[in-house]
Each structure stands twice: as C-alpha cells, then as structure tokens.
C-alpha cells in the first residue's frame, strides 16, 4: 500500500525514515545505539513502506535516549510514529504488557475527552508533550515488525492495540486517528472528509470528529453519530427542565414525559385564562366606565371636565408605576401598593363618591382598573422613570 501524499510530504519535512523491512531485526531487541537525532537526509517523496532499503536508515530502538525532547514536536511526526507502531500490534502486545494498563486507562480517558469535545468548531489537536510522547511511539516502532500481512491483520486489532501502544493521551489521540486513517487506507483511500480531519494542523474549518475504537469511520456514520450525540445532549437538557424526571432513563419514556408536561402546561394556560375571564365580569361596569382610561388614557384624550383629574392622577400614577415595576416579580405586592394608591386616588376624586362605596365592595375591580391604568400609562408617561424602575426590578 502506499502512503498518501500528505504522509510523504511530512516525511520529507521531518527528514527521517522508518525502516520497516529491517524492523524485524529489532523485534525484541533493545538498541541502545539508536538515536533520534541521527537521521540522515531523506530522498523525498518516493518513500514507501516497501521502499526502505535495508540498513540505510536508523534503526529505532525500543529505548530512546533522553534527547528525544529536542525532536521537533510535529503532528505529522506523531501521526506517522503512531501509525507505524500500529502495524504490528499483534507482535508488540506481548512486549508491551507492562504498559498496557496505564495506557489503556489514559486512552480511554482521552477518548472520553475527545467525545466531549466533538462540536462544529474545529478541534485543535493539542500538541503538548509530544516530544516525550514521541518517545513512546518510537519505543513501539523499534519493536515493531512491519509486514504487509501483519499490517492488515493488525487492522482488526487496531482498536485494542491503540490503547496499548500509546503512552500519553496525545499519542492516544493520534493513534486513534491513525487507526482511522489506516482503516480508510485499507478500505478506501479516498474518503476526503476523514483525510481532512486527520490534517488537524492545517484545516480547522472541518468538523473534527474522532472515530472511536472499533467503529466505522465513513462519513455517513460519523455524521450520524454527531447527530445522535446532539440529540442525546438535548434530551439531557430537557430532562433537567421537566420536573421529576431525574431518574427516568431512556429516550422513549423521557419523550412521553416531555409531551405530558407540555400538554399539562397548555391545559393550565387554558384553565387560568378561564379563571381570569371569570374574574373580570365581577367588575361593576359603572366603575369601569368612570375609572376607565377615558380619564387617564392619552389615546382617548381626556374630556375637559376631567382634565384636572388626570393631572392629579398623573403624579399618583407615577408612584403606582414605580410600585408596580418594583413588584413585577411579586405581583401581589404591587397589588397591595395599588390598593393604597387606589384609595388615595378615589378620595382625591371627590366628584366620584359613588364608586367609592362600590369599590370598597369590589376590590377586584379596583386592582383591575388600577393595573390597567398603570400599565397603560407605562408606555406613555414618564419614560425616564421606567429605566430606573426596570433596573431595580430586573
């Protein structure tokens, strides 16, 4: 199989080659004389897996000198390093028994992190500590035996072996990604979306989706998975909204609960509107006529005889407006304030003695009228008061 062009380019960029034909020499051996730094120049783009001539390239040992830190942390480098290490997972598994557990845990954790980070904004692959982690890759590389057959076989076990081979989470990320790439290269080298996703460093405008272990990686299933995760995230949010649904599990039951709750809310609106309409007819229409907005409503323009009344009422209404706005959250409070103001207003309107007695019997109408009046005037009077009141109330 051939490396794709991107890989070749990065190989050239990094200036190293990994030798897989002679990696068999290294199986099970430690090569202390290997050094990452001793990398001869490469020949360029025609480098392939099967083209590495024997013995001409540095053998990557299982133990790396501590100078790996000065190796350029490069995403492509890590990619390839991890990729190479994946190819002979079957052989390496025995050797890597010691690091299995820690690596598996880390990769699982990183997997979780990656799953959480799936979103429309591009995921930047964190290139932290890659110098050290490349050591981990190289370790496996050194012990890797790459054959075409083993590569193909290892594809099956890639999902498992990725965790074993990666020592740190960035490496785990790239091994997973490389496994993704491997699978694609094995199956269909022309899945552009996945290739673009693997070019994390360059293209950020694509949706970066990590293929999980052992899952299909073609673009349809990835999009499907993103959609399913969005849906489950929204279901969780809805679960928090609907009261009493914390212990309900499963989408079907949850959906039933949601539907019941919305239906019950709508029924409550109907019932409360019936109640509100039942409250209103208790108003005495005389009161309504007298205290209606014809007195106070600037739209209708007060009649000349009532002009003084409207002047008087304005100051009181300002107060009532403020009171109402203060008590917007607790409407009952404002109703009390209104009651007091209503009293004051009625007493001031001496020409309207008749409604006083009626009003004392029907406080409902009083609230109603005053709220009408006050809120009608909120839009028209005292703009300057409203901001203050709104600030205080909100």
């Amino acid at each position, binding site marked *: 199989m051939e490396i794709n062009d991107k890989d070749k380019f990065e190989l050239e960029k990094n200036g190293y080659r990994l030798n897989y034909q002679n990696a068999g020499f290294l199986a099970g051996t430690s090569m202390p004389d290997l050094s990452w730094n001793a990398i001869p120049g490469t020949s360029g783009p025609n480098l392939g897996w099967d083209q590495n001539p024997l013995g001409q390239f540095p053998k990557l040992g299982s133990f790396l000198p501590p100078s790996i830190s000065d190796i350029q942390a490069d995403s492509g480098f890590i990619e390839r390093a991890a990729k190479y290490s994946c190819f002979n997972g079957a052989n390496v598994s025995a050797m890597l028994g010691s690091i299995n557990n820690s690596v598996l845990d880390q990769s699982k954790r990183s997997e979780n992190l990656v799953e959480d980070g799936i979103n429309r904004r591009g995921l930047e692959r964190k290139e932290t500590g890659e110098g050290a982690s490349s050591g981990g890759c190289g370790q496996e590389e050194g012990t890797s035996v790459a054959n075409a057959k083993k590569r193909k076989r290892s594809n099956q076990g890639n999902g498992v072996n990725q965790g074993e081979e990666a020592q740190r989470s960035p490496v785990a990320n790239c091994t997973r990604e490389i496994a993704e790439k491997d699978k694609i290269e094995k199956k269909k080298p022309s899945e552009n979306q996945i290739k673009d996703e693997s070019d994390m460093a360059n293209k950020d405008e694509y949706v970066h989706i990590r293929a999980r272990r052992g899952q299909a990686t073609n673009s349809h299933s990835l999009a499907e998975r993103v959609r399913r995760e969005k849906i489950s995230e929204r279901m969780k949010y809805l679960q928090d*909204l609907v009261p009493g649904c914390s212990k309900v599990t499963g989408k079907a039951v949850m959906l039933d609960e949601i539907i019941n709750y*919305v239906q019950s809310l709508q029924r409550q609106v109907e019932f409360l509107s019936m109640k509100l*309409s039942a409250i209103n007819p208790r108003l005495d229409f005389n009161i309504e006529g007298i205290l209606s907005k014809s007195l106070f409503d600037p739209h209708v323009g007060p009649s000349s005889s009532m002009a003084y009344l409207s002047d008087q009422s304005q100051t009181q209404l300002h107060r009532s407006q403020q009171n109402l706005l203060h008590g917007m959250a607790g409407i009952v409070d404002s*109703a009390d304030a209104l009651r007091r103001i209503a009293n004051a207003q009625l007493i001031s309107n001496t020409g309207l003695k008749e409604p006083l007695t009626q009003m004392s019997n029907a406080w*409902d109408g009083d609230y109603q009228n005053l709220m*009408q009046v006050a809120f009608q005037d909120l839009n028209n009077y005292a703009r300057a008061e409203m901001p203050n009141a709104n600030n205080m109330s*909100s």
Partner: protein
Amino acid sequence: MDQFMDRKNYTHRNPNPNYTPNYNSMQSLRFIQALARINRAAPKPTTPSRRTKQIRRAAYASMAYTSGSRHNWSRALLIRLRQRQRLRSLRLLTVRRRVRIVTPAMSRPEEPARAETLRRLVPGGKSMEYCNLLEETADYMQCLRSQVQLMQSLVDAFSS
C-alpha cells in the same frame, strides 16, 4: 394591518443605556397590557367563552412577542396569530403559505414514535428536524412555564 398589530404591541424603546430587559418582566408587561386592553373593551357584550379565548390569545401573544424572532416556535406562533387576526377582521382567507420543505412523518424513520405528537404540540414543529425540535421544545417549555406562573400569580392577586 401590521400597523394595527404594532400599535397594540409596541413598547417604546427604553432610553436608559444600562437597560437590560429581563424576559419575565417583559412578558408580564405585555400580558398585563393585553389584559388591560381586553378589559377596556369589556363593555361590549362578550360571552365568557369569547373572553377566555381572548385572554388565552393574549397569553400566547405575550409569550411570542417577548421571545421575538429568536426561536422558530415564536415566529410560527406570531404568524399564526396574525393570520387569525386578519381572518377575523377582514374575513379574508388569502393566506400565503411559506414554502417549506416538509418531510412527512413516514419519511423520518429514525425518530421515535411520539415525535409527531411533540410536533403537533410545539408551534411550528412540523417542519423542523428532530434535533431542532428538541431544542425548541425546551425553550417553549420554559416560556410556557413562566407564562403559567404569571397567570397564576395574577389570579391569586385578583381573587384574594
């Protein structure tokens, strides 16, 4: 016709630079204004059922207006309200339907079975995808709940 609607529902722009509208207070304000309007028109004989409908319509209108264009359901609700307004006043039935690509229920096999019920409940839910439908449902539920609380407190205030 739109001017008519705007006159009823227009709130003057607040000149305070620090004014941050709270959703609940905006909703309460609109609803109470609507109630005031309904009560002002009360001397005209109205049957209780008509009043109920008016009040219910005012409730949904206040919800939709405070949510504005931010959500699909509020837009759909506003369109529905305006259509009915036109119907009632002009007795015309010339409703220009917005062309939307609606996939019928049969062609959405990946949804659960009750999703269609949810679509009927949430305004504008017929043409949304399931994913967006859930998001709209959450917002619609919150608005409905605040509206119910508002009406409940009004009823308590008036009946005490």
